[in-house]
């Protein structure tokens, strides 16, 4: 083989290599990496991602993840995706820090990296999508109660432990916006310690201490289920509405019995949809991240980033008798 043929071959190969990504760009490949496969919550998120892909037209969603929730498993998945030269990776991380080197390598190869649901440290991603924010949750839990009390009424909060950071922040945020809900009177805050029996007892105590109680707000998944059971057992279904944050699979019975009219939690379908939209915007439409940046995400409006390049998707999604059947099998 002459030197010229050799040079030509290498040139052709190089050209082919350069052309390959251009061809792939015809179909944008976005990888949705989840904590582990086979979890209802993430299957639902994948459904949302497919919806976004259909809306965008030229997008192929690669739904993938390890078989168990380990950072090692996710690193392998990320390395495989780098080798496949995907356009973007949207990941719900099993570890904040362990994935950073692998994701940095992906970004050096020109792959867009964002995290959603469970975040990665800032240096390992371009931005992070939170399902909601503390002020939105604080507002939602009181709104859920107020929506069914047009003339106002007495509500009580059943929290987890006195030291639960999340619950304390949400209750604090709720207190800040109480002024927007005239007539809603928070009569007590009690703590069920995230134990079914103590939460049940506290809820029973609330109904005894405040015979005119109209609603119990429980921003904790153990508390809301226990309070609903206590309301059923006290024969106060219809008088006391139990609401707050819970999972559809766990709350289906309470909605069925009428003890809870509605409750909220993030919608995994919306989450997967928004993550895909954001990944597309960053990788294809040249959207920039940074404090104050606004990135559109289709039907979910747009996301505003803060100084840590994080943004909150939306209000928690409200579940009631009309949609519980669809979601109780999902998560």
């Amino acid at each position, binding site marked *: 083989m002459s030197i010229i043929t050799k040079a030509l071959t290498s040139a052709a190969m190089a050209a082919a290599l350069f052309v390959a990504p251009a061809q792939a760009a015809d179909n944008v490949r976005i990888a949705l990496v989840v904590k582990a496969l086979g979890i209802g919550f993430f299957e639902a998120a994948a459904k949302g991602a497919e919806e976004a892909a259909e809306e965008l037209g030229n997008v192929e969603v690669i739904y993938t993840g390890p078989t168990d929730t380990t950072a090692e498993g996710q690193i392998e998945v990320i390395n495989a995706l780098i080798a496949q030269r995907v356009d973007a990776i949207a990941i719900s991380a099993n570890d904040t820090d362990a994935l950073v080197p692998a994701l940095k390598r992906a970004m050096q190869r020109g792959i867009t990296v964002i995290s959603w649901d469970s975040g990665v440290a800032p240096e390992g991603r371009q931005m992070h999508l939170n399902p909601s924010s503390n002020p939105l949750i604080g507002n939602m839990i009181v709104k859920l109660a107020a929506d069914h009390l047009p003339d106002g009424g007495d509500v009580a909060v059943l929290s987890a432990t006195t030291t639960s950071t999340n619950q304390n922040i949400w209750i604090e945020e709720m207190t800040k916006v109480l002024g927007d809900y005239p007539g809603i009177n928070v009569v*007590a805050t009690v*703590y069920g310690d995230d134990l*079914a*029996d103590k939460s049940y*007892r506290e809820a*029973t105590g609330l109904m005894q201490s405040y015979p005119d109680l109209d609603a119990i707000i429980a921003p904790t998944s153990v508390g809301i*289920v226990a309070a609903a*059971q206590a309301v059923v057992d006290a024969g106060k279904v219809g008088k006391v509405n139990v609401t707050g944050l819970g999972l559809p699979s766990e709350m289906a019975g309470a909605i069925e019995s009428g003890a809870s009219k509605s409750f909220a939690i993030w919608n995994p379908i919306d989450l997967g949809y928004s993550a895909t939209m954001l990944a597309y915007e960053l990788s294809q439409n040249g959207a920039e991240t940074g404090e104050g940046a606004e990135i559109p995400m289709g039907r979910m409006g747009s996301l505003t980033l803060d100084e840590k390049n994080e943004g909150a998707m939306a209000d928690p999604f409200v579940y009631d008798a009309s949609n519980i059947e669809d979601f109780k099998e999902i998560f």
Partner: protein
Amino acid sequence: MMRFLPLRELILGGAVLILLALIATRFPGFVAPDNLANVFNDTAPLIILALGQMVVIMTRCIDLSVAANLALTGMAVAMLNVAMPDLPIPVIVSIAVLLGAFMGAINGLLVWKLAIPPIVVTLGTMTIFRGVIFLISDGKWVNSHEMSPAFTGFPRAQMLGLPVLSWAAVLTIIVFAVMMARTPLGRSILAVGGNPHAAVYTGINVGRTQFVAFVISGALAGLTGYLWVARYAVAYVDIAGGFELEVVAACVIGGISIAGGIGSVGGAVLGAIFLGVVKNALPVVNISPFWQLAISGSAILIAVAFNARAGRAKGRIILKSADVTP
């Protein structure tokens, strides 16, 4: 000695009444008969478990795995109910009792045959049982809408004015009162705790008696497992987390000596009721939740200190003359 035991129960009974009177001054509705029935119903699981723990403690052992046993049995029967909704409740109850007894037997065998200290054995099995719940359930919950109405309805069913859950406690109390006072087993449990060496000379197998005590405690934990899961209509890994300490506390308040050999059915029941009243009263008397824990703890300490003083054997001075030698 026999005259002394009723006195201790009398004092404890008096303490419960004083407590009720105090609560009534802040929340009169608490002492309404309806509510007292509710408090008893809420305390029923604690009473049943305290009686099981009582026989274990009396044989100089301790069973820290009761709450984990309860949770594992509860999860097992809840999953069984989801898989086979038509299984009749008596079958479910029998399975729960047998499963609980089997787990108690594991504790008992380790203590009896391998002579491992009971606190170590049950601390180990406590963790193992919780781990097994995670394995069989995959960390998922069994929720109220998945359980059959008969399954969740049974402990709530009213019989002669009280729910079945309360009757289960009443029945357990009666069986234990008879067993402890009138059967060879009950007397040998007392004998083994009181003086193991003497018990051996009277022909009692100490290890075997301790084994039986663990089986009894396990069987009751299994029974409570079903009742608990059905009552709160939810089963998950952490149900009744830390409840074993409440059970031990009820026994200690009830005057059952941790050193073994001393105690009575009435004491264990009153100890459980005392704790039950405190737990049910705290939410309604409007005390800051930050104080509630401290108050619960102090009540236990005061009761135990009181018991320890009352139970201290009067020493006999046998060499009095030696003191007065010049």
